């Protein structure tokens, strides 16, 4: 036992030390950034506010009762920080971008800045925090009783609660920070983290090597069941506890405060991701040894929750006992301070302020010191929260094991998980879903776990707990709808969290969201895309800047508001102190105010002045961008696909054309070779005969020479034709056009073939007379075409009385000259091929050419802007038609 005087002196001295640390850090941080305070180690130590007196005292008690089960409370956070730090990182980023002040603020802001959600989350947080605070009061009271031997627990607990409320008010609400950061408090908590860790390790080392003879001695004769605990190790309760502790380290208001709101730099999470699990490992290291040494050394029936204190006391180690008491005191005070700050911020921002603003009509017209109101509401909230904790302690009688009380709080805050996770990862999550999930989850939690924890002393009676309301067994709080023979904790988690998540998903899927919810969902889910957001808005409101300035002064304080407005005026390039009340200014102000009073209240106040719903251009773009991106990507894909298809088709066409050309080239070369060989063979044969030894008569010599001459001419003509056609095809042959008298051209052509016509006695009929009819053509080439067509008409004419008729039809622009013979005409099959190179018709002839005449003729006609075609009168009667443009008579040419 220690004297009360010494204990009180040490406690007050310790609290004074915390005051000094917090005060100095607060003052220094106002003068400029403090390097060591911005260290990730301080950040990590502040997160260790997770380890409360429940850890300090309760973990040993849990280990003594249930063996290894206590580690689940630390394995859950370890798994979150090691494997899920990216989730925490996203929360931190969202909180920074949206100036989030609490978990209630984040959830309400995500679901359309909904005040009702903010109130609901705040109420659940208050209800869940109350037993947790009671747990701290209980543990400090009991430890005080053990050390000092006092018996009046209620009075002690009251003064402890009052002292904690005073400390929290003094340091948690000394001023209104723009971001709800409390540098002094964080430093004090980091200091307390070291104290509680060292105290627990000191007791552990003393237990193992001071009381027992080392680790082997500690665990000697300890049955395996005591290590494993009564429950099924790695069984459903294990999984549930690990899940709950993992959830708690994200959702507990105080954890959200230190991990997310107090975070200065995002990369500090990287260090915390391994350093915080290491801290948890350190603090858990001696839990089991202390528990088993206590069980061996201390008298039977000793409370295992107090082994950390009673073990040194039983060995007359008063100094160590005092240090251990300070460790437990540190654990409790740090938790109470941070939890009270976090919850009071929620209560004041989401419950007191909106009501007060409504009553005072603070806004456009009415005066009122909002800062004073905010601070007062927070101070009252802190006192009320600690008062509630004290009340819970008094009603519950403080008889339950510490661990059980802590777990009630864990299940309570686990109700935030579906809305929180869904909110930052699922775009379709909406306010209706979140409200339904939270309400159903909270009600089930209260019914299955929270109310039964009073043992029938609060709201529901013992008979309801054991037999169900009105004796309906299916409604028993701890065996709901037939889920019997289940651990009450697992039962409560399955019903509350399960139903919460299920209803959240179903209602969100079935209902729609309003515009603001959809905008916020885009901003939260895609937070990494819109950090540097341009908050220019699409609303066109007319706002008086002075109204906004007055509002800012009331909430942020005169100096801060003046600084903010000056900065915004400078950004606009304005010479005045106040900026133009543009959409950007209004949106920036709303975010600054959200840092002090929460998004929902800030939104409500700004909207009251501006009279418009703020819809940021970036928000709209974010909303639109996702759909637009999908449409754009889809469109681009279809375009690419169509383009590829087109290119492939073009390639196929080109390939086919190349193949055809290649084939044509081969055919052409083959035909040319063949056509050249025939006269060449003839020339060579007759030349050999003439040169040979055999006697050749003079008549024969003359005939052979004549054949050689004819064949040479044929060869020359063939080569000329090939040359012509290659030039025409290559586009190298340009024909100068001039007015040509058609009559002269036709007559000249007939003259050229006069030999043939006379020998075949061909009757020629030209009608009407072509005299004076002028066409635009090249005289020589037109004559060549006519000779070709007319000579064909003679050569291929099989009639006994061959007859050629030249008919002419004209209009104002064109002239059509038809060459009709009575020799049978061209068949339709021949008509399709006769204009191809080396093609010959099927009509018999004594003098077949090379098959180049018609292709060349058509090419010439085309070059003269005309055409050469085969026209059919009937299936068996056809004729050739020359089409040419009509020309005016050229006087010079006529002369």
């Amino acid at each position: 036992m220690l004297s009360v005087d010494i204990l009180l002196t040490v406690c007050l001295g310790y609290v004074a030390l915390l005051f000094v640390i917090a005060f100095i850090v607060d003052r220094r941080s106002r003068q400029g950034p403090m390097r060591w305070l911005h260290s990730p180690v301080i950040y990590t130590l502040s997160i260790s506010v997770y380890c409360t007196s429940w850890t300090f005292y309760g973990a040993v008690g849990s280990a003594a009762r249930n063996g290894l089960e206590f580690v689940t409370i630390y394995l859950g956070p370890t798994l979150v920080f090691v494997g899920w730090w990216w989730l925490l990182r996203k929360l931190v980023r969202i909180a920074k971008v949206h100036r989030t002040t609490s978990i209630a603020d984040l959830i309400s802001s995500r679901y359309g800045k909904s005040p009702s959600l903010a109130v609901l989350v705040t109420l659940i947080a208050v209800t869940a925090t109350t037993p947790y605070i009671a747990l701290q009061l209980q543990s400090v009271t009991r430890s005080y009783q053990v050390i000092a031997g006092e018996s009046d627990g209620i009075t002690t607990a009251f003064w402890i609660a009052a002292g904690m409320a005073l400390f929290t008010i003094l340091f948690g609400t000394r001023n209104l920070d723009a971001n709800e950061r409390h540098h002094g408090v964080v430093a004090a908590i980091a200091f307390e983290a070291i104290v509680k860790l060292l105290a627990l390790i000191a007791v552990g080392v003393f237990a193992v090597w001071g009381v027992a003879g080392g680790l082997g001695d500690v665990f000697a004769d300890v049955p395996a069941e005591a290590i494993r605990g009564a429950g099924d190790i790695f069984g459903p309760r294990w999984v549930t506890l690990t899940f709950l502790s993992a959830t708690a380290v994200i959702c507990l208001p105080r954890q959200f405060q230190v991990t997310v709101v107090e975070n200065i730099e995002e990369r500090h999470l990287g260090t915390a991701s391994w350093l915080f699990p290491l801290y948890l490992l350190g603090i858990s290291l001696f839990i089991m040894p202390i528990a088993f040494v206590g069980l061996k050394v201390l008298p039977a029936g000793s409370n295992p929750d107090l082994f950390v204190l009673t073990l040194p006391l039983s060995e007359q180690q008063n100094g160590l006992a005092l240090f251990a008491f300070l460790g437990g005191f540190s654990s409790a005070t740090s938790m109470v301070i941070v939890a009270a700050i976090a919850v009071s911020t929620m209560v004041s921002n989401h419950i007191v302020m909106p009501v007060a603003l409504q009553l005072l009509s603070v806004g456009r017209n009415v005066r009122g010191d909002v800062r004073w109101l905010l601070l007062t509401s927070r101070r009252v909230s802190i006192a009320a929260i600690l008062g509630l904790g004290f009340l819970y302690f008094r009603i519950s009688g403080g008889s339950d094991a510490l661990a059980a009380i802590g777990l009630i709080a864990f299940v309570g805050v686990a109700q935030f998980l579906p809305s929180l996770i869904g909110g930052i990862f699922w775009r379709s999550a909406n306010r209706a879903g979140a409200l339904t999930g939270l309400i159903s989850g909270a009600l089930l939690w209260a019914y299955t776990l929270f109310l039964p924890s009073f043992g029938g002393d609060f709201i529901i009676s013992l008979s309801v707990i054991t037999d169900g309301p009105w004796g309906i067994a299916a409604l028993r709080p701890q065996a709901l709808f037939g889920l019997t023979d289940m651990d009450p904790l697992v039962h409560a988690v399955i019903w509350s969290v399960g139903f919460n998540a299920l209803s959240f998903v179903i209602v969100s899927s079935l209902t729609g969201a309003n515009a603001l919810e959809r905008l916020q969902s885009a901003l939260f889910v895609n937070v990494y895309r819109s950090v540097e957001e341009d908050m220019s808005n699409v609303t066109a409101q007319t706002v008086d800047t002075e109204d906004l300035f007055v509002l800012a002064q009331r909430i942020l304080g005169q100096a801060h508001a003046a600084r903010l407005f000056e900065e915004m005026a400078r950004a606009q390039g304005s010479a005045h102190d106040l900026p133009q009340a543009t959409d950007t200014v209004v949106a920036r102000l709303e975010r600054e105010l959200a840092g002090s009073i929460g998004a929902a209240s800030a939104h409500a106040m700004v909207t009251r002045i501006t009279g418009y719903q703020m819809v940021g251009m970036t928000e709209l773009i974010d909303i639109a961008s996702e759909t637009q991106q999908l449409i754009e990507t889809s469109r681009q894909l279809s375009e690419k696909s169509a383009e590829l298809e087109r290119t492939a088709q073009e390639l196929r066409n080109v390939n086919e054309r190349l193949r055809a050309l290649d084939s044509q080239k081969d055919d052409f070369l083959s035909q040319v070779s063949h056509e050249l060989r025939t006269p060449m063979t003839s020339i060579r044969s007759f030349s050999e005969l003439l040169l040979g030894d055999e006697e050749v008569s003079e008549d024969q010599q003359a005939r052979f020479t004549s054949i050689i001459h004819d064949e040479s001419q044929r060869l020359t003509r063939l080569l000329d034709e090939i040359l012509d056609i290659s030039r025409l095809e290559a586009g190298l042959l340009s024909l100068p056009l001039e007015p040509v008298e058609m009559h002269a051209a036709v007559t000249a052509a007939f003259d050229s073939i006069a030999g043939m016509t006379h020998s075949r006695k061909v009757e020629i009929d030209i009608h009407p007379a072509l005299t004076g009819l002028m066409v635009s053509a090249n005289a020589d080439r037109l004559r060549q075409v006519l000779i070709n067509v007319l000579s064909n008409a003679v050569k291929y004419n099989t009639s006994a009385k061959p007859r050629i008729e030249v008919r002419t039809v004209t209009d104002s622009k064109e002239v059509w000259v038809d060459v009709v013979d009575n020799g049978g005409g061209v068949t339709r099959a021949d008509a399709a091929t006769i204009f191809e190179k080396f093609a010959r018709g099927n009509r018999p002839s004594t003098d077949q050419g090379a098959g180049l005449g018609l292709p060349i003729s058509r090419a010439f006609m085309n070059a003269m802007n005309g055409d050469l075609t085969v026209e059919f009168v009937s299936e068996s009667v056809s004729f050739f038609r020359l089409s040419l443009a009509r020309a005016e008579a050229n006087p010079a040419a006529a002369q």
Partner: protein
Amino acid sequence: MPPIGAIFLVDTTLFGVPFPLAYIFVVWVLLIVGGASLVKALQDSDGLHPTTDTSDTSS
């Protein structure tokens, strides 16, 4: 819980420490080492961008 957990529930000791207890703490240490290595690797590859918080106007 996966059956693999039960493999280590043997009634023996490791340096005087019951095996299940030793197993859990060893896994815990491995998790921390793995987490630290992962964070270092990510920071080296610039996976965790240092973000300077400009919202702190209280200083």
